[in-house]
């Protein structure tokens, strides 16, 4: 493969460039830092004990899931407005990653709840709404899988993507509005940023949030690259068909 050809692929987005490598190494360093903070730096919480450390994975997973679904919302709005394939690609990629992290939230939540609450699951507003969010985006991905490729599919998915994201503020405020067994927000509180959490715990949580956000961008670059390669293959196949 010539250098000129590789450069051309970098420009069309079908081959990750140097930016992808930088992102990979940044994510790796971020994760080493996060793991050191979680298992070495931060002291064990007094009431819950060692199991409280699940928070440093559970909360960042929830953050990435919400962020990913917000990106779906944003890209879906842009797709409906401008009808450009690019926005549909980003929305699809972000929905898939959001589903992964939302699933991890729904797995790690019960693992944390069992030793603390004594039950794996309770039909608490926040938990139920998070499950609803997962179901909406599962429907989104199934719609993509079952509907024939084209602008109609992208349009339907964009609508589901927008409607689904409306559940996110409900999840966030459910603890404050309806009361909940689930702990209230500790970082963004009415008393100020980070006032509900100890400094060392806050720092560790922020490092973990940063590392998981980097993972989101790394996964996005890989996932978007796959969609772009599929498009390029389709384009070349059509080009061959018309030239023969």
């Amino acid at each position, binding site marked *: *493969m010539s250098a000129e*050809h590789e450069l051309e692929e970098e420009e069309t987005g*079908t081959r990750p460039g140097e930016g992808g490598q930088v992102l990979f190494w940044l994510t790796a360093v971020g994760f080493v830092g996060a793991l050191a903070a979680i298992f070495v730096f931060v002291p064990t919480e007094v009431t819950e*004990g*060692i*199991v409280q*450390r*699940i928070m440093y*994975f*559970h909360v960042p*997973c929830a953050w990435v899931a919400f962020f990913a679904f917000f990106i779906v919302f944003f890209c879906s709005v842009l797709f409906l407005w401008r009808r450009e394939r690019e926005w549909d690609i980003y929305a699809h990629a972000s929905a898939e*990653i959001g589903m*992964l992290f939302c*699933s*991890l939230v729904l*797995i*790690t939540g019960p*693992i*944390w709840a*069992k*030793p603390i609450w004594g039950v794996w699951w309770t039909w608490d507003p926040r938990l139920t709404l998070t499950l609803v969010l997962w179901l909406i985006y599962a429907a989104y991905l199934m719609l993509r899988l079952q509907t024939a490729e084209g602008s109609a599919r992208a349009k339907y998915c964009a609508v589901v993507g927008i409607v689904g994201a409306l559940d996110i503020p409900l999840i966030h405020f459910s603890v404050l509005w309806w009361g909940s067994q689930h702990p209230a927000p500790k970082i963004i509180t009415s008393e100020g940023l980070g006032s509900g959490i100890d400094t060392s715990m806050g720092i560790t949580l922020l490092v973990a949030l940063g590392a998981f956000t980097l*993972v989101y961008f790394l*996964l996005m670059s*890989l*996932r978007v*690259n*796959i969609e772009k*390669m*599929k498009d*390029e*293959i389709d384009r*070349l*196949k059509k*080009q*061959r068909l018309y*030239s*023969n």
Partner: protein
Amino acid sequence: MKNLGFLFAANLAIWGGIVFYIFTLMKRNRALRRDLDLIQETVKKESGK
């Protein structure tokens, strides 16, 4: 070290989930890269005829 098993299970789920997803992405990426290289090669040969 009470409840260490729960912390281990949560970690296993997180790392297992992320690593599995990266693995499937890389597998899809490799297969598509192969197809793309092949079709690019074919188009180049055909246009050079």
